[in-house]
């Protein structure tokens, strides 16, 4: 290959090497700031020095001089540290961190065809110089590394004044320029990175074939190859499913044959009877002969098929074991420890903490937990955002914390662990917790909910608001956090990964976000459903409950279908409606049970009505091709063993669609002039409420009577008949629940529409109301003119 090609390849390899070393430097430098024992520190410094040293040498080999220069300077500083000439102050660590950043920046610029600007390089170099000189404890006559250019190694005498040297302030006696030319005038010795140096360079050289790590035996493999392998494995799985399908078909053939054999056996007596009569009739004799042969053949074929089926089944089982093993193996190859991602964070936390004037410590747990690379990629943004949020909104300033009796340093904990088929990640802080009231206020301000809604929002729903875009409780917009965009990203990403998030927050104690994700995305365990005659799949990780209800068990809540699950009332949404599929009309007297699946995504859960459940299986997830790039409610598709294409649903998207549908019920309807005046009874102990309700109803053309408590209401109902009744709950003498039950117990009022209007908003009360026999339960918080009116209209017209 020609020189240019070689150079390109070398640079590509160098780039990977640089990334690794930079990561090691970042991680190690942060460690320096911690309290380490003498040996730990020694080891650490050795490692850091090695990294800088390697970069210097390799960069020179690929002729990236600016990178080499900076690395050389870092090597100097680290060398001095190693020897004890310098103390690891935070200024020093800052300087080295900045230099590391410069290295990666330089690489990026080079790849784009440019290079570091002189200015950028100078500022960092001066900084490092300042550190070297300003904090040099005592002179050193000579250095130990013969690999370095000896002409450079004259020590600079320490000047007490220069202790004040900060970055750009270089004492006039020593010109920084003095360093640079000398480092260019390099001897050929410098190129040999390992030989004369007492430090063995075990790190990768830029021109080796497959660079090897010292930590265990590893090889670097291009991720494309892994992806191809994974895809192939997926196809193997499909082929295996097809084979299973064929086995099934063979069994059908077997059973047909079995039936046929039975009939033959039944007709044997006939044959025997004919046998006796065949004398003298050659045709019958021939036919009977044929029958015998036929029977033998049939038996023989039957035996062969049985034998074949058995061996095929045993082969299939073997294949299944092998492919399972292989699939596990390939899947594990794609797994990387979360440390790969976690390692990015300490640096980020440190930088942001500094920026915000907060002291934060990031505690990592379970970094060795393995996770599919693709899932890891998808987690980068959400985790970054949650962590930034924790520092921004969660952790208080040191003074605030002390005032609260907490330690100065805030703790942010990032934990990973594997649980069955899932990986669980937790981001928690011991800060001020989420201010739910502020969230609600901000939601109202951003027109996400009405002020009335805000009053009745429960904990889960409020937290869910946090995940919607457009929300920012922070007064000033800070980067990503304050703009209210970030949490939306978290939600979307988690949706894509079929993940769930649970939030736990306590004022002044802190907040914890728990993310639950499937271990891999390439294949998925799905639940198969039947909706409107279509077969659909839903990821198992999002299925919370599978239930069957009798038609009578479907209640109504706020005028819409609802079911009771685990003591709570959940709205029941028609999956067919969400998916814009034709709704199957079931026969009037069809007593068939109604299938309900509860799906959860991010923070929400809803119940969906489906036609049937068709079992669960593992499938290979595919996308829908280049034309259908993003379809709402649909996550992807899969091909079953039969060749059938089945859509895989996206529960997060479905739940959001469902919420849209629920809102649309508040469409303004045209009010028809009533010819027959309908009568409504309003029972409430509050005069204000009674008056309000009466006005609303009378304006719409109803005749309204009032009562101040349950007992009075009951008495009024004895005097007049009403078309509908509206009860408050909290009333003296007889409350709304009791009144409802009493009304229902009376045969005359069996079908009388009862509306409960109250400020009691807990799910238990709603349930109680439904069980007492009310038709509709309206909470006063969400109570506005429209809802009551529409409810009455819906009930009685």
């Amino acid at each position: 290959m020609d020189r240019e090609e070689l150079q390109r390849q070398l640079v590509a390899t160098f780039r990977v090497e640089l990334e690794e070393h930079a990561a090691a430097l970042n991680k190690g430098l942060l460690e320096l700031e911690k309290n380490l024992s003498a040996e730990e520190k020694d080891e650490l410094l050795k490692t850091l020095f090695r990294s800088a040293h390697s970069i210097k040498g390799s960069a020179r080999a690929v002729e990236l001089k600016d990178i080499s220069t900076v690395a050389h300077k870092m090597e100097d500083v680290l060398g001095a540290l190693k020897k004890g000439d310098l103390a690891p102050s935070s200024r020093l660590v800052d300087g080295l961190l900045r230099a590391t950043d410069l290295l990666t920046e330089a690489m990026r610029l080079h790849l784009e065809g440019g290079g570091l600007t002189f200015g950028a390089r100078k500022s960092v170099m001066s900084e490092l110089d300042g550190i070297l000189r300003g904090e040099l404890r005592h002179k050193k006559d000579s250095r130990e590394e013969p690999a370095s250019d000896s002409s450079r190694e004259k020590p600079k005498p320490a000047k007490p004044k220069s202790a004040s040297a900060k970055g750009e302030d270089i004492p006039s006696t020593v010109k920084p320029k003095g360093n640079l030319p000398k480092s260019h005038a390099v001897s050929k010795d410098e190129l040999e990175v390992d030989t004369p140096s007492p430090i063995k360079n075990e790190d990768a050289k830029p021109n080796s074939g497959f660079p090897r790590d010292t930590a265990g035996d590893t090889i670097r493999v291009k991720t494309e190859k892994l992806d191809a392998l994974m895809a192939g494995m997926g196809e193997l799985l499909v082929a295996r499913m097809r084979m299973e399908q064929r086995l099934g078909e063979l069994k059908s053939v077997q059973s047909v044959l079995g039936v046929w054999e039975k009939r033959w056996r039944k007709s044997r007596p006939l044959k025997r009877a004919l046998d006796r009569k065949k004398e003298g009739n050659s045709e019958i004799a021939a036919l009977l002969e044929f029958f015998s042969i036929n029977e033998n053949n049939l038996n023989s074929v039957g035996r062969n098929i049985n034998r074949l089926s058995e061996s095929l089944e045993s082969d299939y089982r073997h294949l299944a074991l092998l492919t399972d093993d292989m699939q596990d193996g390939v899947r594990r190859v794609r797994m990387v420890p979360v440390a790969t991602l976690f390692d990015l964070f300490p640096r980020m936390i440190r930088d942001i903490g500094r920026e915000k004037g907060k002291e934060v410590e990031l505690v990592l747990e379970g970094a060795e937990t393995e996770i599919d690379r693709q899932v890891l990629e998808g987690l980068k943004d959400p985790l970054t955002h949650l962590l930034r949020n924790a520092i921004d909104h969660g952790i208080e300033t040191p003074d605030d914390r002390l005032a609260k009796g907490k330690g100065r340093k805030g703790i942010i904990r990032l934990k990973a662990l594997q649980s069955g088929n899932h990986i669980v990640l937790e981001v928690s802080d011991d800060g001020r917790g989420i201010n739910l009231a502020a969230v609600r206020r901000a939601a109202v301000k951003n027109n996400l909910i009405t002020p009335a809604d805000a009053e009745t929002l429960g904990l889960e729903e409020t937290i869910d608001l946090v995940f919607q875009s457009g929300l920012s409780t922070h007064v000033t917009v800070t980067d990503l956090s304050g703009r209210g965009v970030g949490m939306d990203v978290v939600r979307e990403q988690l949706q894509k990964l079929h993940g769930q998030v649970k939030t736990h927050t306590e004022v002044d104690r802190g907040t914890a976000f728990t993310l639950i994700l499937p271990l891999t995305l390439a294949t998925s365990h799905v639940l198969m459903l039947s909706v409107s005659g279509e077969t659909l799949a839903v990821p198992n990780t999002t299925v919370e409950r599978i239930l069957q209800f009798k038609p009578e068990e479907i209640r109504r809540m706020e005028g819409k279908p609802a079911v009771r699950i685990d003591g709570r009332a959940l709205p029941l949404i028609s999956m067919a409606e969400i998916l814009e599929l034709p709704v199957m009309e079931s026969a009037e007297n069809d007593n068939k049970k109604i299938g309900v699946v509860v799906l959860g995504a991010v923070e929400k859960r809803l119940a969906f009505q489906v036609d049937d459940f068709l079992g669960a299986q593992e499938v290979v997830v595919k996308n829908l091709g280049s034309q259908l790039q993003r379809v709402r409610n649909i996550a992807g598709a899969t091909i079953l063993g039969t060749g059938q294409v089945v859509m895989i649903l996206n529960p997060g998207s479905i739940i959001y669609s469902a919420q849209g549908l629920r809102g649309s019920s508040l469409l303004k309807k045209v009010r028809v002039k009533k010819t027959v005046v309908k009568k409504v009874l309003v029972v409430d102990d509050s005069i204000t409420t009674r008056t309000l309700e009466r006005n609303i109803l009378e304006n719409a053309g109803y005749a309204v009577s009032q009562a101040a408590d349950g007992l009075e209401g009951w008495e009024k109902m004895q005097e007049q008949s009403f078309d509908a009744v509206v009860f408050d709950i909290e009333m003296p003498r007889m409350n709304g629940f009791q009144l409802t039950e009493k009304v229902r117990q009376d045969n005359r009022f069996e079908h009388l529409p009862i509306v409960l209007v109250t400020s009691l908003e807990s799910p238990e009360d709603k349930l109680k109301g439904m069980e007492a026999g009310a038709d509709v339960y309206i909470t006063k918080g969400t109570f506005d003119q429209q809802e009551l009116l529409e409810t009455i209209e819906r009930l009685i017209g």
Partner: protein
Amino acid sequence: MENPLSADVEIQKVLENRARALARTDDAASAEQDVLRLLAFRMGEERFGVNMNYIQEIQPLKREMWSLVPCTPNFIVGAVNIRGRIYSIMNIAAYLEIGTELNMEKAHVLLIRGEMKPSRMLMEFCILAEDRPKLEQVSLVAVQPARGTLSSKGQEFVQGVTSDMLMILDLEKLISHSSIIVREESI
């Protein structure tokens, strides 16, 4: 009285020019100068013809091999499995707003593959045909401009009409057009 015909005349002119341009275009697939080789198929009352260039393959559409894709625009029929890969099925008639009822009994799909211009992104999808597409030779001389009665979309993608009322589709344009892509903003 204002002249409502002038707008139509304009349109007609544009279409005529286009047809003429098509007639003059060298068709790489045809050996002779004056003949276009097209793959012709039927959709409802209409017949369409497409250049072979972008057609990857033709497959009969078996009932078990395809499914509906819910929540997609009306020009998406569903998705089909061809040799283990999933492709969307597009209804050209619906897309061009020439509404027609579908009869899937003898349906076939034409697998289209081509690069979008200018992004060079690979586009693969199927077009539905209600019958088995056949090769037809069309004399260029016989190509006329598309009917002005077509919708705007129709006018954009139909290059011309033959004497047997075969509408010649501009596949190249179709592939590169962003409106055939379904990509919802927020899900």
